[in-house]
């Protein structure tokens, strides 16, 4: 209690009640989220990792990450190369910094794509109903039925026949980055589409939608300013958990050699490269990138779990 409210106890109780009533849904979510210690730790871990890969790239220039020193190939971790060197003598520590940027970049863009596709397809199916709904949902089911890794491989080969190099912000990237983003985005929207559909189906029967229709709002307006904002909770949760999923998928795709091509590094293709040197005992080549993958996915999953509980009003008793 602050000194400004030094009045009768009854008055201060009223103030407290007024304060409670004034909480917005967003504040309620934040309040529940704050109590979730693991989720907060996940959030802090994510921020630390972001600082590491962004700060690292300010201190260490990109040329260092691609600099091959054939004299010190497959060198175990030393004070000079903290995480050792790979098969052509590149520093694993530096490559983790730059690889992490690419992995996260792919993850974020793939999730943006996943969210847009899932929201649009699920929302349109529910809003228009009828045969539109049937066709879109059968398509969604078809995509779910095909085992995801099989779909990823076929799609990666489908899109990836001709790739060149892309220059973004003065840095040259293998065009395969775009393919990986497309492939992950195109194969991950289905579950969100179902969630959004279910949500919109129940929302569109509510009175405020009828009111909005009676006032002459266009379908687009009802869709984007009434229906979608009310589905934001599940969308945010899916986006967070989807980011973890996308980073993991990138690792799988790259591990199979269909992902981002050398010399651009990602955590996934560093592991793929390491696989051939496994028998020769170069453990540092795969242990460090995988630790980073596990760490970031763990943090994001914790964050997503906390958000899910925070957005679910029924979950308060578990906290």
């Amino acid at each position: 209690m602050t000194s400004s409210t030094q009045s009768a106890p009854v008055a201060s109780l009223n103030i407290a009640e007024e304060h409670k009533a004034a909480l917005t849904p967003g504040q309620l979510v934040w309040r529940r989220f704050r109590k979730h210690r693991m989720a907060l730790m996940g959030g802090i871990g994510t921020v630390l990792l972001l600082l590491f890969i962004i700060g690292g790239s300010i201190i260490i220039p990109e040329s260092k990450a691609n600099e091959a020193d054939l004299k010190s190939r497959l060198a175990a971790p030393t004070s000079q190369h903290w995480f050792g060197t790979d098969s052509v003598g590149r520093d694993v520590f530096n490559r983790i910094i730059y690889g992490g940027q690419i992995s996260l970049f792919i993850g974020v863009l793939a999730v943006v794509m996943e969210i847009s596709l899932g929201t649009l397809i699920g929302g349109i199916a529910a809003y228009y109903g009828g045969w539109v709904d049937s066709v879109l949902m059968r398509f969604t089911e078809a995509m779910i039925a095909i085992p995801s890794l099989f779909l990823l491989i076929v799609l990666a080969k489908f899109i990836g026949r001709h790739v060149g190099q892309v220059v973004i912000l003065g840095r040259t990237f293998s065009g395969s980055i775009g393919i990986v983003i497309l492939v992950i985005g195109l194969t991950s929207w289905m579950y969100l589409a179902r969630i959004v559909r279910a949500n919109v189906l129940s929302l569109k029967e509510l009175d405020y939608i009828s009111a909005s229709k009676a006032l002459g709002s266009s379908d687009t307006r009802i869709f984007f300013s009434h229906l979608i904002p009310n589905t934001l909770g599940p969308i945010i949760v899916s986006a967070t958990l989807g980011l973890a999923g996308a980073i993991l998928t990138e690792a799988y795709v790259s591990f199979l050699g269909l992902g981002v091509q050398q010399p651009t590094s990602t955590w996934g293709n560093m592991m793929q490269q390491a696989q051939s040197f496994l028998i020769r005992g170069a453990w540092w080549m795969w242990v460090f990138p995988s630790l980073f993958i596990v760490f970031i996915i763990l943090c994001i999953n914790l964050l997503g779990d906390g958000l899910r509980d925070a957005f679910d009003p029924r979950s308060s008793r578990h906290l």
Partner: protein
Amino acid sequence: MWSYLVRRLLQAFFTLFIITMLCFLLTHYSSDPMSQYATKQGMTAADRENLRHSLGLDQPIPVQYIKWLGLALQGNLGSSFFSHQPVLKMIQQRLPMTLILMVTAEVFIIIISLILGLVAAIKQYSFTDNLITSLSFIGYSMPIFFIALGCIELFAVQFKLWGLPYLPTGADIWSPKDPVQMIRHLILPVFCLVAIITAGYSRFLRSSILEVLGLDYVRTARAKGLTEKVTLYKHALRNAILPFVTIVGLDIPGLLGGALVTESVFSWPGMGRLFWEYAERGDYPVVLGVLLLTSAGVVFFTIVVDLAYTVIDPRIRLG
């Protein structure tokens, strides 16, 4: 009930139709099987054209699709471009190996995750619960190749160096006919699959058991003096296990597709590797065959799970 079944079957049929179209388009545009021969000695461009013509690859895609679909409906999935064996025969050869791996893994997965989920839920917030929950969270965030490479490094590479009895890496040649060799080769991939999948399952079971334990009817059961054992196993578990049945049921057809990454890392001659090897070469009859069979399995099992639900849970009536 019957009208529901008919409707579901019609929907499933439509979904399967979309799957065949999607897979056909993706595989046919994804790679050119003739590119294999581009550098082959003594093969001219005219030879390649003749071969393309004799395989029917020069016809328009819709014509090829209808021809393929017609044959597929009669149970003929065509022959591989390279091994010239019928696709169905190739799948028949690989399926038993995949089933050995996946069924063994699945049995362990179900038993272990049931035990872990139960223990964690009963002893909520205890040290055991925290340990199980943290480990399953880590396992859930881990790409399977991380644990696979780790196992090879430890049990195959290092154990051999230390002179201990070691397990095979998967790089050697072995005969599946010898049961001793089979078991030796089975241990590591099964362990990896169990570790990763159990993590997700036990987390799921823990939360569904906890949810049921918080329900009123469980309190009633306790209040009327039932022992904790009876309350738990006869009342709570029956309901808590329902969503678990769905998840396991939907994962079963995935078993047919095998575990692509695990099979590749450990050189297990199953369906996943069959798919991967032939997808690399652009041999679409094989790729399509595997895709079609596994996705049809998923569609079929989705219906079976829905029907099974009415048996396990009499409250659910389909209509």
